[in-house]
């Protein structure tokens, strides 16, 4: 008998037991009518060929394993970064359940968001009644300081008008007229989760700056920073704040989810925890400048802010040495504050670490996938480590992204031969890894299937990470974050070296 009370076997070991292996064999042989082992082996080998790759890249309609989510996820994430804010999804309720699950699986933390549960009658008559009733119930049960409304594709297809609907709800006095209710239309058939993030950040600012009251901008000395859609936000935002405090910068983070998705367990569940205060969000109009850490998650937002007379600037997920350098120099430029000695010391430690390890890094070929800013920032860091980004893939990257990454690759001898794959998915990546193999793969947990199929070791450094715990609790941002990325890459390289040869099983490396 395979199971025992002494040593309980779960799925990891139980199904390796002979009884179960025989059960699988018997089921397959007698009942399954699957393709033969020869057919499977032949097709498997075929999928590794250039010929299959060409067929794979010829497809124009089927999308297979795209590492990309839809707009309202980004809107819910953005909304979660404001104090006392309840994200509200107007449309089908299943979407809200999916967003909450998705965020919780990554952050290992609670994620709230209400839906107004539109059904078939809503599809016919529109969702006004759902919205009115939903806002009232949400407000009374959860007592939010703000309700941020986004839409599912159902509400978008039938053309519900959030501005008019929310105004109607306030006219009916089901919620107080003064309750902030920013909104964003977030059709899932346009763009990706990043578009939704952008739309919601813009929606919140637009609400506070124009809809709640027409604010006059009175420039002050502060700067706004928009961190972007970042799976490492809890640790990264804290690191960001530490740096800004060190510099003595007066700043506002626009949508800060660092506490929302990383709250303490202390015996009480607080549905709202942390976030950018609403007052700071209002006052953010007065900042002298706004800096976005993710250009392609904030395009519309920055355009809107620039229209208010602020200076705006955007980086592409600043990772590594030059990424972090650029961040500090940009902040110094925008604020006039000098970069303190302590930061230079941290920088020096990172340079020290990189110098210690270059021999293990140089020439290692890497495939990289993820969001556009992320892949852009990571490419820059890999190049300065002397690693070779061979495939850089983003299913939601724009033509501008493609050009920028190509220019980055062209700027370094380590970028020679690097290829940029815009609008491609992970089934494309599978062909790439078989036909033009690399040493390492960097991406999200979805890369684990590529690791299994192609044997390319995966380093998890992008959202979402479902199958490893707590990575988001340690930063990837800044010099400290770069050090952490460096160690993760090195550890993987050393593990491979240790595992691959008896002879070179060195004690010291």
């Amino acid at each position, binding site marked *: 008998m395979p*199971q025992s*009370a002494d040593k309980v*076997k*779960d*799925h990891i070991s*139980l199904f390796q037991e002979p009884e179960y292996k025989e*059960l699988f064999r018997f*089921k397959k042989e*007698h*009942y*399954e*009518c699957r*393709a033969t082992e020869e*057919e*499977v082996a032949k097709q*498997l080998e075929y999928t590794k060929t250039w010929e*299959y790759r060409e067929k794979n890249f010829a497809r124009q*309609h089927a*999308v*297979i394993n*795209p590492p990309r*989510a*839809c707009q*309202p*996820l980004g809107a819910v994430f953005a909304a979660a970064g404001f104090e006392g804010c309840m994200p509200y999804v107007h449309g089908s*309720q*299943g*979407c809200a*359940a*999916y967003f*909450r*699950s*998705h965020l*919780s699986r990554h952050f290992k933390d609670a994620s709230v968001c*209400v*839906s*107004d*549960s539109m*059904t*078939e009658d809503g*599809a016919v008559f529109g969702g006004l009644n759902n*919205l009115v*009733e939903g806002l009232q*119930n*949400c*407000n*009374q*049960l*959860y007592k939010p300081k703000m309700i941020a409304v986004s839409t*599912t*594709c*159902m509400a978008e297809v*039938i053309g519900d008008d959030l501005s008019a609907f929310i105004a109607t709800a306030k006219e009916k006095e089901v919620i107080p007229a003064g309750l902030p209710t920013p909104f964003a239309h977030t*059709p*899932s*058939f346009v763009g990706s989760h990043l578009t939704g993030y952008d739309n919601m950040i813009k929606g919140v600012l637009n609400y506070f700056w124009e809809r709640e009251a027409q604010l006059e901008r009175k420039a002050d000395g502060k700067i706004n920073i928009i961190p972007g859609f970042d799976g490492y936000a809890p640790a990264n935002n804290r690191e960001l704040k530490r740096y800004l405090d060190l510099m003595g910068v007066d700043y506002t983070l626009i949508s800060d989810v660092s506490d929302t998705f990383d709250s303490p*367990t202390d015996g009480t*569940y607080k*549905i709202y925890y942390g976030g950018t205060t609403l007052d700071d969000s209002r006052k953010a109009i007065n900042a002298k400048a706004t800096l976005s850490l993710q250009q392609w998650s904030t395009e519309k937002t920055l355009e809107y802010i620039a229209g208010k007379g602020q200076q705006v600037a955007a980086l592409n997920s600043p990772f590594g040495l030059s990424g972090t350098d650029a961040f500090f120099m940009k902040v110094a430029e925008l604020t006039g504050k000098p970069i303190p000695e302590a930061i230079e010391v941290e920088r020096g430690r990172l340079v020290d670490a990189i110098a210690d390890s270059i021999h293990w890094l140089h020439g290692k070929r890497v495939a990289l996938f993820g969001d556009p800013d992320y892949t852009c920032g990571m490419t820059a860091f890999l190049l300065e480590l002397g690693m070779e980004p061979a495939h850089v893939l983003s299913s939601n990257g724009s033509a501008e992204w493609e050009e920028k990454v190509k220019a980055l690759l062209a700027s370094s001898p380590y970028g020679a031969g690097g290829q940029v794959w815009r609008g491609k998915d992970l089934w494309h990546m599978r062909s790439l890894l078989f036909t033009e193999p690399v040493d390492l793969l960097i991406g999200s947990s979805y890369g684990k*299937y590529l690791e299994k199929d192609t044997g390319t070791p995966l380093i998890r450094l992008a959202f979402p990470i479902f199958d490893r715990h707590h990575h988001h609790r340690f930063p990837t941002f800044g010099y400290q974050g770069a050090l952490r990325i460096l160690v993760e890459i090195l550890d993987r390289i050393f593990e491979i070296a240790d595992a691959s040869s008896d002879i070179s099983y060195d004690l010291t490396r």
Partner: protein
Amino acid sequence: MSLDYTVDGQFNEGLIKEVVEVHPEKAGKKRARHLGTVKEGSDGNPTCGVKSNIKSVPGVMTQRGCAYAGAKGVVWGPIKDMVHISHGPVGCGHYSWSQRRNYFTGTVGIDSFVTMQITSDFQERDIVFGGDKNLDKMVDELETLFPLARGYSILSECPVGLIGDDIEAVAKKKANDTGKLVVPCRCEGFRGISQSLGHHIANDCIRDWILGKREQEWETGPYDVNLIADYNIGGDAWPSRKLLEEMGLRVIGSWTGDSTLAEIERAPKAKVNLIHCYRSMNYICRHMEETYGIPWIEYNFFGPTQIAKSLRKIAEFFDDTIKENAEKVIAKYQPLADAVIEKYKPRLDGKRVMLFVGGLRPRHTATAYEDLGMQVVGTGYEFAHNDDYQRTAHYLKEGTLVYDDASEFELEHFIEKIRPDLVGSGIKEKYGTQKMGVPFRQMHSWDYSGPYHGYDGFAVFARDMDRAINAPVWNKIKAPWKAA
């Protein structure tokens, strides 16, 4: 033998009053009908006394999902040798990608497609011009890339049903083109009120597009059964199959955990359907009963008490050989069950558990907890119907709190006030509960553990509940300088 304990019904009635009062009047009235305690009904039998399968109240934060989730995630997703197309925008397929842990054997992308996210990825132009043409060409591309796929399901997302696409016509055309089964499934998320309609729609699609469509070469034997509505979460269907095969039965079809299309098509050849999750597949069992005269038996493979009861119930349908075999199987595994109980019961005895899961487990797991000496003090379903609640009350003690389609607000209040020793629910409920210092197990995904079915699974179940409840961390919630 049922465990003896009492539940404070009066206290629970008070809790219901407390949560209802906080709602606006209309919402409170609606929600009050979904909350109750187990009482003796007018017929002398226990009743849960709640309404169910009704639209969720907007804005209260229902934990429910949608029809697509029920159709794709539950029914279709596990059929391993078909390609399941999430037809519409990218999100639905993305969020449900590899999240249900319906285990299978096979080679992904070659002869099995369970852990893949395959989507038509609607763009604005598809909304304007329709998605049928793209879908047509998409199937051709998939045929080129996945020639060993045995068929296709087309799972509609919200926009498809709103823009007037004719996926049935595309399905028929592609079935002709490819010579394979192509099944259109109208499981748009706005249909119905929960995952439940998605199960129903998916059942109907199997009825209308698969069963009886192609000749089946199968000589029915006297002991041929289908294992229905076990989705093989964490491998559940395998210890279940093992018990049935040891009893001498031939499990000719597994629906749909680890199943192939052939197993689905062959189903009408069975002598009897054995159904685990009544909620999600009673429809197809009724259909097979009416059309093919196949009877069906509900069973419960959680915990030794229900397993033994179920094995005997199943054996009753067959001859003496099977009946004797059932006794042999029970006798073979009883020492394992006893050893598990001996090890874990002292650690779990008297611990109180609250459950909130989908459409089956809030009742089906109750006795498994009681086998370990635990007490079920509250339970409820996301998407059960009246017939589920009828099947529930006899599992529960009088006074047990019952909550149908409970909202985040209600669950939080009930958990906070009852302070059970364990909550068994889902990923959305997990982290908030743990912040209160209350131990938790995910009971949809088995919290990445399992299997929980069968005797082999019961050992894992017991171990996991012990790990959750008796973890040292729960004594460390308060800082020692404040703990006094």
